[in-house]
């Protein structure tokens, strides 16, 4: 099924001493990331949380290749990453969608620019359109879809491209609560079906807990702690009301609230 995946070297991401310094308009330097080390295993789901401005989106952009680190390296399969590429699919918070293409032709985009023949492309796209539940809407333009459906379209487009790594930058931040929960469950279902290394940036603790294997808690450009999420898979919405879930949620809250406490390293971070 996942023909692009080669046996042998497992796809994994390694961040080595990543530091990112950005210049403000006035020329002052801001350290957005500093000394970030992180290994992500094949099929692992990582959530990155932290207060706004903590560098979580910057971290994601480095992996996506949308910005180069000032120091340090980002390795994918042991090879250094430079610039964006189809091996790292990104689901953005905003409306990243090709407005002039129908849902079907949106999902076909990545395959089309690779030169996949039309019939093959259509079959392949159809699978992902069905996977995200847009089969009845395939011939509609994005303007005719709801915000949640446009997000599904984006996810299908990125997945159809069969990336090694899935990067999601607060993808559901702009959606209403029920839609958000529904899409979280979809993400879990898809992850179970096609497990791939995922980095999911969010400011929503519950979302992070519900989805991730490990939660990276960031603060002022550094990894403050990495928390293991003990819940097994597959997960469903019943998990949200389990006492263990609430306990861990409270713990993470305290961690984020505790702001300036001395940085403690998690057990396996």
């Amino acid at each position, binding site marked *: 099924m996942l023909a692009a995946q080669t046996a042998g070297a497992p796809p994994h991401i390694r961040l080595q001493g990543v530091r990112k310094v950005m210049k403000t308009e006035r020329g002052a330097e801001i350290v957005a990331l500093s000394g970030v080390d992180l290994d992500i295993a094949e099929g692992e789901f990582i959530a990155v949380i932290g207060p706004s401005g903590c560098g979580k989106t910057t971290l994601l952009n480095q992996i*996506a*290749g*949308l910005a180069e680190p000032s120091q340090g390296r980002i390795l994918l399969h042991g090879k250094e990453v430079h610039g*964006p*590429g*189809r091996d*790292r*699919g*990104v689901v*953005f918070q*905003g*409306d*990243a*969608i*090709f*407005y*002039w*293409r129908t849902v079907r032709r949106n999902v076909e*985009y*990545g395959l*089309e*620019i*690779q030169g996949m023949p039309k019939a093959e492309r259509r079959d392949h796209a159809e699978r992902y359109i069905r996977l995200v539940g847009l089969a009845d809407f395939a011939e509609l*333009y*994005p*303007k005719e879809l709801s915000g949640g459906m446009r997000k599904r379209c*984006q996810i299908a*487009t*990125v997945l159809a*491209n069969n990336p090694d790594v899935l990067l999601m930058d607060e993808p559901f931040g702009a959606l209403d609560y029920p839609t958000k929960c529904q899409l979280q469950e979809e993400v879990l279902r898809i992850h179970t079906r096609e497990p791939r290394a995922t980095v999911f940036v969010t400011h929503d603790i519950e979302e992070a807990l519900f989805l991730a294997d490990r939660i990276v808690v960031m603060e002022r450009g550094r990894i403050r702690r990495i928390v293991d999420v003990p819940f097994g898979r597959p997960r469903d919405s019943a998990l949200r009301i389990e006492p263990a879930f609430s306990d861990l949620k409270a713990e993470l809250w305290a961690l984020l609230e505790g702001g300036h406490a001395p940085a403690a390293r998690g057990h396996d971070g």
Partner: protein
Amino acid sequence: MAEVMDAAPRPPRRTGPAAGRDGRPLGFAVVLVLLAAWWIASAYVAAHAARPDILLPSPLDVVAAIPRLAVFAGPGTELSYANALGVIAYHSAVSMATLLGGLAIGGAIGVGLALLLGWSRRLRLVFEGPLLLVRIIPLLSLLPLFLSWFGGTRTGAVSFVAFAVASMVFVNALEAIRNVSPLVQTYARTLGASAATVYRTVVVPAMVPELVGGLRVVLGLAWAILLAAEFLAAQSGLGRILILAQQYLDTSRMILIVILIMFYTYIFDRALALVARSLTRWVPRQK
């Protein structure tokens, strides 16, 4: 029994573009009022002015002037409706060919230049200033210059319209390129598109609605530019016979030609609107 049949449910009222037709009776009424106002004004002028036919002929005078258009076919031509129709057809065809030629050439140059400059930062640095300088030259001030270069030839008129269209379309197209969402371009990059592919598959389709919107304005102005060129530097065309009518002091014929030009402008605008609608079906519209 027939009444029962009549009570059958009516098809639901159409919404969307067709719903705009609800305003039509009102628009029609306004036209009638204006026509009546013209008539009353011309009656007043006829009662008080020495040469009412020059100052303000009545609508009937204008209709009666139709056969007199035949005079533009050459001296001695019989002043008949058939010959007038021939004159209208000939000069309309000349003007439209000039207009369409100028639009096609100018549009291609304007969009082409904008695409080049939108693509390359270096080209932009070198050429954007000079090209914007060309844009601020009052177009009509260049007409005598075109007259010197081309004389009163059709090539001159086509060139002038093309120049005007190119300068307007260029600015519009470059702005349209700049307004293409950076997020969508970045998104395409992460899906594996090269910079050139992003330009071809994202920037070009995404700029179309703004370009087409600007084109409607350009089309209206292109008619004005064409008429100006024909006033000064042409042997035929609607602008030419309009200025000839003025020299004969035949206001009725002038009004006829103006009405004809209004009709063509309207038809062109509707045609472009139709094309625009099919090209921009995907554009999210404000409610």
